[in-house]
């Protein structure tokens, strides 16, 4: 009899999101020296063996969906091509694919090289893990790889519970009681602003648009932010929101609400180090009353909204009891319909994935020189900006299914964000 695993609530939720995006999380890491493929193979198999969800197929049973553990070989997971003519193009093509839920493995890794640079690319089904655990996964992959080439043992990958209830593990009993009663539907954001992409067409295809922020510019606005006691996330929200007003041609006095992804592991014991690989992402809503005269005014508006969320000890935990109730009371086919009625996927979002630590992602002698991580490829009209930083360089990514015209719109949008960064630095140069 095949071995099965329980489909947790977030697995089912991410499955439901198939209507809004392609369910893949993407990561690309570029190195300056060769990667030992044999060592990587051994480490990948070890990791896959310890994480059954990664070699399981999702069975969308109408009553109770589940994962069925499947057989696999390393060829199902790893692809190697060391004679690429155009490395970026090959990497792009690899990460723009989607793994079907009924596939025997739920993640794919590739090693590509053009002789000068070596790329480690990975895509994984969002139902298995979110950006937070993806970062953890990549770090442990590097750590275990380094142990393997050094002939050391003691590989590590977390294998705890993937249950949604883990999210309450660091709360006191009293706080848990309150958190488990937060039935408010936070997805019902009263905002119908959307990113001005073209209507869906047959030319639409998966694309991950990227823009790097120069190190000097990033360092400057980060330094000013530090003086003002403002986080990079708050600053980026301000740059992003201001650019949205411009690209969307929204009225300057209109209220604009943007959901910003938050890692719920802040509520989990040991920051989620003892759970299994899974999703623990919620969101806080940043609502600005108006665009503001200058970028500083936009920042003040952002801070006024964000403070409310930051002061809330239950940030990101709203709606979870409602989801749990829906999945507990009804069979899958009914709960999915009920949630679809009540859930409104945010039209515009932002996710600050943060730093890809080059020291922790080093593979033997190969140093991380570039890279990014981004979320799922959104279907129109949805869009999300993802941010990652490698060696002091920030990469903005927007993953969408669109056409060349959409690409131009996104490029223009990146220009506007960068301009806001420059304006901010100019306006606050005295604080540098």
């Amino acid at each position, binding site marked *: 009899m095949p071995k099965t695993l329980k489909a947790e609530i977030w697995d089912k939720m991410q499955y439901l999101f198939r209507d809004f995006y392609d369910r893949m999380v993407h990561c690309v890491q570029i190195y300056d020296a060769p990667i030992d493929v*044999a060592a990587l*193979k*051994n480490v990948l*198999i*070890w990791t*896959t*063996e310890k994480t059954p969800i990664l070699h399981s197929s999702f069975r969308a049973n109408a009553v109770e969906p589940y994962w069925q553990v499947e057989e*696999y*070989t*390393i*060829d199902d997971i790893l692809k190697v091509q060391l004679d690429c003519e155009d490395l970026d193009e090959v990497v792009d093509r690899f990460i723009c694919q989607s793994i079907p839920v009924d596939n025997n493995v739920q993640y794919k890794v590739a090693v590509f090289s053009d002789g000068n640079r070596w790329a480690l690319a990975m895509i994984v089904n969002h139902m298995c893990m979110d950006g937070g655990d993806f970062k953890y996964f990549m770090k442990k992959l590097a750590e275990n790889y380094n142990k*393997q080439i050094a*002939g050391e*043992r003691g590989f590590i990958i977390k294998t705890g519970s993937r249950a949604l209830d883990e999210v309450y593990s660091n709360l006191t009993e*009293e706080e848990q009681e309150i958190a488990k009663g937060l039935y408010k539907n936070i997805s019902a954001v009263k905002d119908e602003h959307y990113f001005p992409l073209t209507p869906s067409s047959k030319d639409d295809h998966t694309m991950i648009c990227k823009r790097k922020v120069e190190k000097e510019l990033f360092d400057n606005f980060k330094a000013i932010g530090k003086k003002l006691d403002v986080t990079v996330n708050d600053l980026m929200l301000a740059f992003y929101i201001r650019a949205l007003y411009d690209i969307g041609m929204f009225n300057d006095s209109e209220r604009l609400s943007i959901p910003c992804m938050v890692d719920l592991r802040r509520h989990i014991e040991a920051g989620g180090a003892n759970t299994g690989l899974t999703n623990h992402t919620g969101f806080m809503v940043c609502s600005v009353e108006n665009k503001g005269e200058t970028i500083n005014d936009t920042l003040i508006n952002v801070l006024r909204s964000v403070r409310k969320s930051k002061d809330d000890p239950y940030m990101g935990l709203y709606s979870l009891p409602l989801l749990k109730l829906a999945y507990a009371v009804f069979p899958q086919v009914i709960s999915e319909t009920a949630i679809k009625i009540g859930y409104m996927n945010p039209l515009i979002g932002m996710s600050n994935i943060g730093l890809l630590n080059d020291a922790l992602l080093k593979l033997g002698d190969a140093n991380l020189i570039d890279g990014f991580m981004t979320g799922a490829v959104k279907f129109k009209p949805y869009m999300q900006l993802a941010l990652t930083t490698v060696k002091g360089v920030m990469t903005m990514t927007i993953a969408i299914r669109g056409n060349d015209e959409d690409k131009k719109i996104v490029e223009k949008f990146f220009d506007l964000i960068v301009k806001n960064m420059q304006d901010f630095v100019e306006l606050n140069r005295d604080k540098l």
Partner: protein
Amino acid sequence: MEDRFKAYLIEAFKTIAPTKAAMEYRKQTLKAMLDRAQELRIKGMTDEELIYDTVLEDYEDFGDKLKEFEAREVKVNSAKRNVLLGVVLSVAVVAILAITYVIIGVVAHVWHPTWLLIVGGIFAGLLVIFGLVGAKAVKNKEFTILRLLIATGLVLISVFVFLVLQLASPLENVWLTFLAMVAVIVGADTAIAFFVNSKAKWIELPIFVEIFAIMLYVMLGILVHIWHPGWILCLAGVVAALAEVCTFVAIRNGKKDKAEKKKIYDKNVKTDEKYWSEW
């Protein structure tokens, strides 16, 4: 690889007695280890050291397993034999009842309603099976199965009681058995809810009270024609159900008020040492 696994197992098995069972368990474990190593090679793992370590990682708690193995109570496995005995006995009882039915029919020319003997035998057999499955369900805490079995069992009993009363007694209106059956099924289900301390118990209780009142009203109305003022029973059922719900909410509120009062006192009246140091 095999020798290394054997060496590992020799060490590990030193903690338990060298019995035939231990030898068989050791052989079985060695085979599982070798199979696992082969599987890892097929998957693409090439580092033999890593294969060895990965296989042993699956046996991290093997010491505990061995302790459990030695401490296990080896019982005579009579389950299958008991099932066989049960089947033989059931067939024998049904056969005896069938033979009795035929003998009575042939000797006394009474074929009706003696066939109830056979129906009763079959129902009794089913109830025994329900009892066995129900006991297992209780053991496995599968209370939904238990509830279904009890409801089905009560339906069988009600049907048999109805048939006996209808065919072998002068009583009238014996169909009222089925009205009583509804109240009994809901009552039994409520009792199970209390027995297993289900959250639904406080919802089931007022439903049972109301259904019981309605069934009693209808039965008394038909049997002794007290439709009026018998209808008061239905309203009394509603009042009783509402009283139960009110009491439940009041008790719950009382508990919450008490907890909140304590919290308010702790926060606003009690001296907190953290006041002097925390910002």
